[in-house]
């Protein structure tokens, strides 16, 4: 069976972001970009399923400009069989992404779609659930453990206060949480090989989708700054401050 993994190119998680002075967004010029960490986990899971003989083909897909080719090269280097760029330069919001992915999934007919649970840029945590709705498939978000046996997926999810296990018939959408696996690093020979492979390309129009944004971002600003605190010199002083100044104990 085929699996589709959806990837997003985001500002690298180690970068300290800067809000643009005109309030239109976050500075991305000359900033290191990487694959969204949760998507790396989703991709790793797909590659492991292939190595286990459960999956026959791993197809990685992303949406965005030509610049997104770098995450697709990374995907090839860690084991994706085919990679596809749905090319557009419009601002992509989750519903548009889910709508494009729906059309892509209908074209490719996978039995499983893996995504990261959220992207670390917009922190929306929406795309997987929306894709499941649009396809009318089962969804298992925040996956901690995924097992596929025959036509069934058993997914243990991270929920508030513990874990929950669901079972669903394929096809299913699974979104990866932090502890589903630890992604591998691409090796240098595989990175070199990936450079020679083909990146397939599609336009949203080829999929019959208009990806225009539906929400308007009016302003992006810095969060309020906490007023500077003080350093106390002893536990006794700390207790005194918490009692008499902060009045929280």
């Amino acid at each position, binding site marked *: 069976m085929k699996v589709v993994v959806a990837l997003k190119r985001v500002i690298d998680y180690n970068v300290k972001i800067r809000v643009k002075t005109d309030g239109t967004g976050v500075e991305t010029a000359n900033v290191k970009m990487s694959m969204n960490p949760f998507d790396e986990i989703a991709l790793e899971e797909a590659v492991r399923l292939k190595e286990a003989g459960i999956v026959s083909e791993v197809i990685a897909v992303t949406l965005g400009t030509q610049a997104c080719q770098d995450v697709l090269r990374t995907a090839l280097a860690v084991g994706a069989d085919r990679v596809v760029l749905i090319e557009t330069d419009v601002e992509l919001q989750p519903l548009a992404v889910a709508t494009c992915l729906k059309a892509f999934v209908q074209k490719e007919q996978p039995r499983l779609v893996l995504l990261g649970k959220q992207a670390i840029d917009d922190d929306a945590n929406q795309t997987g659930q929306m894709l*499941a709705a649009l396809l009318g498939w089962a969804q298992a978000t925040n996956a901690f453990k995924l097992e596929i046996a025959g036509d069934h997926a058993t997914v243990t999810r991270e929920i*508030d206060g513990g874990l929950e296990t669901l079972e669903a018939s394929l096809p299913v959408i699974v979104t990866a949480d932090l502890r589903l696996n630890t992604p591998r690093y691409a090796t240098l020979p595989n990175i070199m090989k990936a450079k020679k492979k083909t990146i397939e390309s599609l336009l949203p129009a080829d999929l019959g989708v208009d990806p225009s944004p539906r929400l*308007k971002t009016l302003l*992006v600003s810095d*969060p309020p700054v*906490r007023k500077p605190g003080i350093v106390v010199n002893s536990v006794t002083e700390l207790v005194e401050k918490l009692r008499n100044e902060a009045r929280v104990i």
Partner: protein
Amino acid sequence: MTTLVIAEHSNLTLRASTLNTIAAALQLGEPVSVLVAGYGADMAAQEASLVVGVHQVLHADAPHYAEQLAEEMAVLIQKLATDFTTLIAPATVFGRNLLPRVAALLDIAPITDILAIESNDTFVRPIYAGNALAKVQTLETKKVLSVRPTSFEATAAQGGNASVVKIEACAAVRLSQFKSRDLASSDRPELAGARVVISGGRGLQSGENFQMLEALADKLGAAIGASRAAVDAGYVPNDYQVGQTGKIVAPELYIAVGISGAVQHLAGMKDSKVIVAINKDPDAPIFQVADYGLVADLFQAIPELTAAL
């Protein structure tokens, strides 16, 4: 022009997040209905009817709503949506799982994890782990929203007198089945709603050393949390994690013990009212957000603090 709050509950009681969500819904200024969909959820529905500000409670009861699976709930809410202009849920694991599914069925772009309501169509939400705030306007015909519970003070649980209206369940879709749930049992308050939270990091050095925090937590009636580093090191279970990808907390008092303060951790706790940091490294970033910093060896400071309370 009416608002539907999707209640998070355990069939027996409402989760605290529901009261925060109702508070946010009331800010929109329209009559607020609450949906309690569950199985044997009469008590939760009754409880919702007493919440101040609630106009009516819609109660759907069927075996396939017992675990509030997103696939089942979304179909019901899609049907109800014709009568409402705004749908609103808590941005907890429950709401995050469900709300986008509802939104996609309705072909509406949702706004999730709202921190503040600016106007009827404009909302503030965090991006980049709260390192920036985006003011977002929706031009959709309906609003599908989730709100961060810690950003809205809970409405009073008692004092209201709404009617409870039984509504018909939709046919079960049975796309997925619930198998089991493994919840950590604890006498401590729930992490997300606790008045005091004590979190430990890598500095604790082992799972056993978290017992030191237990003794302190007993004194303060606190919940215990952890940084990702402590969870990754196996000191405590996953659901202890506070941060961008874990729990978001905003207690009256947050005590960070042996936590360096990665931005991903700060994202989960920096809205706490009072932050105390105890760390032996004076350059640890956690001190930049702390109201009270104590540069000390936690293995001495924590027992001393526990004894002093």
